[in-house]
């Protein structure tokens, strides 16, 4: 929703006997202080905790901060709430629940309660299920893209990478990118600047 539309909604609400909860939460979101965590829109607290745990095993903290510190979960919440269509949203949330189901089956606990090594075991299984799709064999399946995009772990991994490397932490600390580069060169030593184009 555009700022202008929110203001219009609020202006309308002022003449009502009370401010609707929707308008109020929008108002709060609009005036959220930078650094303050915005309210989650799509994920419930458990789903959010699962997303944080998954993302932080995909991109853990090393010498540089990981996905949790980069607040990748907040980005994923925005995507699930305002970018995915209903079908994608349901499928993503069902995928999260499925992670717990598999975790329960393997270890008798929800994913967030597992030790990191146990979490990694489950991630290895989920990532391994994509092996054929990552490395399409000769005459690869035409439905590859479709299968990949409908796979929960593929989505989760792709969103984690986007959320992380487009965060200020990922961009500056991990990739050493700068918006205005120090100079231009066609072939500079790796490490002098950012990777890729």
């Amino acid at each position: 929703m555009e700022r202008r539309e929110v203001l219009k909604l609020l202006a309308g609400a002022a003449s009502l006997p009370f401010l609707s909860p929707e308008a109020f939460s929008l108002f709060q979101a609009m005036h959220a202080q930078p650094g303050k965590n915005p309210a989650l829109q799509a994920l419930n607290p458990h789903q959010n905790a699962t997303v944080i745990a998954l993302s932080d095993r995909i991109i853990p903290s090393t010498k540089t901060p990981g996905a949790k510190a980069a607040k990748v979960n907040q980005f994923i919440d925005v995507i699930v709430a305002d970018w995915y269509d209903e079908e994608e949203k349901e499928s993503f949330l069902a995928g999260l629940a499925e992670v717990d189901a598999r975790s329960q089956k393997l270890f008798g606990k929800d994913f967030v309660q597992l030790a990191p090594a146990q979490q990694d075991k489950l991630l290895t299984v989920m990532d391994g299920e994509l092996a054929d799709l990552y490395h399409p064999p000769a005459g690869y399946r035409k439905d590859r893209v479709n299968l990949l995009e409908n796979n929960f772990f593929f989505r989760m991994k792709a969103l984690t990478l986007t959320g992380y490397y487009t965060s200020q932490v990922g961009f500056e600390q991990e990739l050493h990118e700068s918006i205005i580069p120090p100079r231009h060169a066609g072939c500079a030593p790796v490490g002098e600047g950012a990777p890729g184009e």
Partner: protein
Amino acid sequence: MASKVYDAIVIGSGITGGWAAKELSEKGLETLVLEAGRPITPENDYVEHVPVWEKKFRGMNDTRKLDQEQPVQRTCGGLDEWNSKFFVNDRENPYTTPDGKPFLWIRGRQVGGRSITWGRQTYRWSDLDFEANLREGIAVDWPIRYADIAPWYDYVEDFIGVSGQAEGLPQLPDGKFLPPMEFNCAEVIVRDAIARHFPGERRMTMGRCAILTQLHRGRMPCHYCGPCARGCMTRSYFSSLNSTLPAALATGKTTVRPFSVVHSLVFDANTRKLTAVRVIDGQSKQAIEFRANVFFLCASALESARILLNSANPEFPDGLANSSGELGHNLMDHLMGGGARGRIEGNEDKAPLGHRPNGIYVPRFRNVKQKQSFLRGYGFQGGGSREGWQRGANTPGFGADFKQALGRPGPWSMGLYGFGECLPNHGNFIAIDKGKVDAWGIPTLHITAQWRENERALLQDMAVTASEMLEAAGAKDIDSFVEDNAPGLTIHEMGTARMGRDPKTSVLNAHNQAHDVQNLFVTDGACMASSSCVNPSLTYMALTARACDYAVQQMKRGEL
């Protein structure tokens, strides 16, 4: 209402409108520029340095809003989460196409027009292009040749600033170049392999682009931040907003009026001249008329033709200045979608630094020396790069090692993407859809266009020759492709009011002046009698400056 009479009115403020305003006002004419869209203030509206983490969808676009408001515009690869505001709202600007024949009409309505978001590639035509229609008996002969336009190419290049490398090729004349940008490692390998394997036939050069590589006429050199199509605070790339409009305003003789949606032109049957422009105010939606002595249509190929078609009157029942019946016909666009990509091994310790907003260019080599089974040809654009973190989504793994690997650049790859010439065809045309109006009540267009046999043959050939060049360079995992893009997507639409020698078969004469209406000039892409395969904007600019010079000379002689 007695209203002021301007010396000149320019309709449109983009690539050609900016040039018309500059030239006419510098030659002393009091000039009114009518722009359909809103004003743009670089300080507020340019967003090239806004970090990706400040965008809600981190560069993935507000897809729901785009589906609602810009379903056509979003098909353009140049639209992103930062600059979608520089593209029109499709709901306000509807048009129709026949079932099964899509045409993608990508538009920008604001002061500066599409010059804010254009691709900045800048190439001269040659006589191979200007003589092609005559030689092959296709459409009509161009009324001009390279010698007529060459001094105007010089003139325009000198003002806008074009970086590039002189190559001495007859089919792609050299210009007045600022130093070229740098090749990267993959490009050097492919360039050298092409030179070795295809001597005298094919060659790779640095893209010639309207981006400054050194200080030029008060504008700063490029600082390689990358996303030009979001604006440029340092005015390092050419746009009317960055270059020609400030020059026009500096004369004190130019007025730019935004929110001026042109409805039609007013023709006086007694003098057989235009007297005024009917405008719908973009905000109040009130009708207003502006009067002038000479009129320059620079609204883009389709909009300019639409205005003329909407200006039908008893003298010209099929559209103003349309005694030939060619107005709206011969719509062309360049074809895109054929080419190849491959991996280039080695140079793992090197990577590009900064974001060069330009690629390589392989000038046309088909039907230059040897005849092919198809007509005309194509050039390749593209470039080399190292894969970034995005490769991670398609790579096995997760965790600390995975993160460390993605923090380093991936393999080098090289892509070659063809841009091919489209033949003029009377059957590709626009007509007014009287039953459907836009948000300002102006009748809209029905666009009928399709690729034909020659275009399809070019597209296939692009994939073949691109693969040959990558193979010659030792590229691995070569992926050649032929994509079926709808016409319009290259955003080089042209030809709807073509120039020609004969008033019976063309709309404009050799000076972009309407054969039928003396004080009407059309200098945008509408004027093109064929399409060449090179990016067209430089030619539009040169033709505009040339037409302005002619118009002012005629006015001084009292002949206009």
